[in-house]
């Protein structure tokens, strides 16, 4: 091949580069290692982590069982090693699963349309806010303090330079629910989006209807965020929302130290053209058979460039496929049963501890660590190979004496009993 290219060494292929730009030394990286050593390298790193600990962490990332089928499916090279399905005729596999994904997200959320995925829940929030702002023509955003704090940080980063002032409204200190009066107070004619989360960061089920009523009365759209998708197996879908922005990590995605996960945006029919990201639509092929393809791409950056609804290109397709397989395996009956188990576990744990808020909760709740600080309690728990709850002081100074506890179907009763002992 060198011959055909008219060179005698591959280095010659680069002689046209200006001398000044060429690296005239080897990269300062070790020589390559074997598969066996790579396996060992990462195992050694993993041994330096939390193997063998029981954990009560949730706070946006949940420990659910991953059905074996999920890995079986996504390990197939046909899904794993294919590109974005631009060439529909040889990508019907991916396209069909995305269409099914969009459908299931609609079924779960009560929305009419869902996109093919966003990077994650945290980036879905500013995308939803931008959507609402475009749709209403009003730039101000009101977000509940009980939305995941890191999601709010991401929102702030995105909003800063787009003329999107963001204000926060509070929660009721007794119930942990939205402070609707504060919301009402802060609403104004300039607000295009009200953003709430349910179950909220404290695990508490929110008053979506009431929030929607207030938002709509002031001409704003309601964005409902979720971080715990399993809750949708049991909870009324947020059908009063205008936009739903969520995180699917709960659907078979390993916590993986924070990613990759998959976010979604779902919305009402009328906002279709404001949706960011990819959409798959149904059509026919030239023989008249049903077929699917990426569609409405005039919303997207590769066509619309600086006028696009978002700059997103690569999304989280494979993770969305994992969620699709998860939803298929659990199905109608299983997702409910799974949610019920989560509910039962968390309420068992709550019965042994003292939840700080009185609001209804799903699989997470806040406890005060009476006397000792959350950090002190967690240290004591670590000695018992238990990772305790998330200390809340970092995000909520007023809750510095509290931690957020989560229990899922994976949480063992014995571990909850041991935790409760230390907390008591």
């Amino acid at each position, binding site marked *: *091949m060198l011959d055909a*290219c*008219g060179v005698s060494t591959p280095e010659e*292929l680069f002689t046209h*580069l200006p001398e*000044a730009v*060429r690296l005239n030394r080897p990269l300062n*990286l070790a020589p390559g*290692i074997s*598969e066996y050593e790579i396996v060992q390298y990462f195992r050694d*790193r*993993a041994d*330096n*982590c*939390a193997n063998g600990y029981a954990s009560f962490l949730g706070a946006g990332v949940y420990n659910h069982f991953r*059905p074996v089928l999920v890995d079986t499916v996504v*390990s197939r*090279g046909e899904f794993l*090693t294919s*590109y974005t399905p631009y060439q529909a*005729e*040889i990508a*019907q*596999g991916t396209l069909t699963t995305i*269409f*099914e994904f969009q*459908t299931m997200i609609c079924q779960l959320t009560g929305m009419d349309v*869902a996109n093919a995925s966003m990077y*994650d829940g945290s*980036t879905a929030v500013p995308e939803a806010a931008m959507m609402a702002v475009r749709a209403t023509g009003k730039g101000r955003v009101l977000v509940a303090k009980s939305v995941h704090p*890191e999601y709010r*940080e*991401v929102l702030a980063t995105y909003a*800063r*330079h*787009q*003329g999107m002032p963001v204000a926060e409204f509070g929660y009721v200190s007794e119930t942990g629910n939205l402070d609707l009066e504060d919301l009402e107070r802060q609403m104004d004619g300039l607000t295009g989006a009200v953003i709430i989360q349910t179950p909220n960061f404290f695990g508490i*089920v929110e008053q979506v209807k009431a929030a929607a009523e207030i938002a709509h009365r002031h001409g704003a759209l309601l964005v409902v965020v979720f971080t715990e998708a399993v809750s949708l197996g*049991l*909870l*009324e879908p947020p059908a009063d929302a205008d936009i739903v922005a969520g995180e699917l990590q709960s659907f078979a995605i*390993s*916590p*993986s*130290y*924070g*990613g*990759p996960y998959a976010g979604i945006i779902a919305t009402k029919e009328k906002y279709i053209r404001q949706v960011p990201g990819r959409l798959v639509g149904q*059509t026919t092929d030239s023989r008249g*058979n049903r*077929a699917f393809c990426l569609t409405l791409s005039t919303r997207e950056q590769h066509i619309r460039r*600086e006028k*696009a609804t978002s*700059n997103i290109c*690569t999304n989280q397709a494979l993770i969305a*496929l994992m969620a699709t*397989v998860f939803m298929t395996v659990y199905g*109608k009956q*299983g997702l409910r049963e799974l949610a019920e188990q989560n509910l039962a576990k968390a309420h068992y744990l709550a019965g042994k501890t003292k939840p700080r808020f009185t609001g209804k909760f799903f699989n997470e709740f806040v406890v005060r660590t009476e006397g000792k600080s959350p950090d002190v309690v967690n240290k004591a728990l670590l000695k018992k190979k238990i990772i305790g709850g*998330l200390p809340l002081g970092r995000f909520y100074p007023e809750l510095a004496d509290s931690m957020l506890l989560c229990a899922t179907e994976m949480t063992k009763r014995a571990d909850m009993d041991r935790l409760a002992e230390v907390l008591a």
Partner: protein
Amino acid sequence: MIKKVTTHLSQNEALLFERSSPGKKAYQLPELDVPAVDASEALGAENVRQEIEGFPEVSEVEAIRHFTRLSTWNYAIDYGMYPLGSCTMKYNPRINEVAARTEGLAWAHPYQPEALSQGCMEVMETLEAALAEICGMDAVTLQPAAGAHGELTGILLIRALLQKRGNPRKKILIPDSAHGTNPATAAIAGYAVENIKSSETGGVDLGALEQLVTEDVAALMVTNPNTLGVFENNIVRVAEILHKKGAMLYMDGANMNALVGIARPGDFGVDVMHLNLHKTFSTPHGGGGPGAGPVAVKKVLEPFLPTPRLRRSGKKLAFDYKRKHSVGRVKAYYGNFGVLVRALAYILAHGGPGLKNATMDAVLNAIYIRKALEPYFDLPYTSPSMHEVVFSDDRQAKLGVRTGDIAKRLIDYGFHPYTVSFPMIVHGALMIEPTETEGKLEIDSFIDAMISIAKEIETDPQMVKGAPYNTRTSRVDETTAARKPVLRWKPA
């Protein structure tokens, strides 16, 4: 003659919703070891939903068959060459998948104590250092989830620096050959976009640049090699022009597969750039994602990087959240960690020399293809190619056959098409990137297919326009899909 493929049986499969039957299930949960709870009581009856209407109800074997059957309708790297220009569809080593599933890493919670996360943090630290070395930059953030997300991060960094210097400025200059994410990103970062026309040779026009760079310009976003696969030979000069006016040089690193081990952006004047780990560093595309878009910067931009930053003190790694100049977070937690693991595995497997060899093979492959196809397709820009080559359909268009048609016909020949109609500065572009993955056998067979199609066009253009013929799905009507959007299944 089509030699690469034959037709064979392919299982049909209905949508999940169409093949569901009430009561079927594919799961079993452990028996509950605590008392069951009444949902209406615990959550309030008004908060408890009815059944999820339409949700799937299939058995386990039906589920596995469903996805297995669908999978076979896809083309994939594991099937053959995937010459999508700009996409760097290289082999995705399976060892990376094993690495990413290492239990203590895959099941690490982002909020677990730092003392119990040292292994994860070390993976990140090692990757940051390797990417900095590869790019010749001073610091790297791993937080962005993809290339476009990296672009946004990078432009926000520039904005923050300029702001701190007193004026964030108003405009970002973007060549007309740029990827769509570049202008879209600039807009989200609050900048106006000014397009800059490419020179005759397809590069940045220095004259035009000098004119356009004013005190209003925050940065130029340049892709290098550019989307023609051509190295910007004036890049050092470009940087000088910008820097002289206090503007910054942003590099879209999507094409780093042409440079790793050969040249480093940090050495030729780039201030900030992103990488696509799902291109250059072999993490799988997975039908559209996930990826990771780390951003590498020069020292001057380091204070502005997203929070948190990884910091080592002695034997301990920790996250530093207190960074007053930071642009803030661009994503919850620390980035697409699982993708980072895969990329590090790739870097470890190759090592320094291996990475450079990969680059050389990638470029050799592209040039080999260029030489072989030049007699058959029009090459509008003749500057030396790096890792990809862009032809135009000019010659074929005269017979009514466009790049999109050639692409579809290539499917019949057993290949995934090249990138169609991008970059926009080429009329009817055929953008071909073989990557280092392909061996001579596969490439020669691709070349044969392309030449064969070129000849078909001369004898039977109409036939080519109807392709593909051998796929289970024939040419898809994208117009109707967009005109009457059907974006979800509904019961008939």
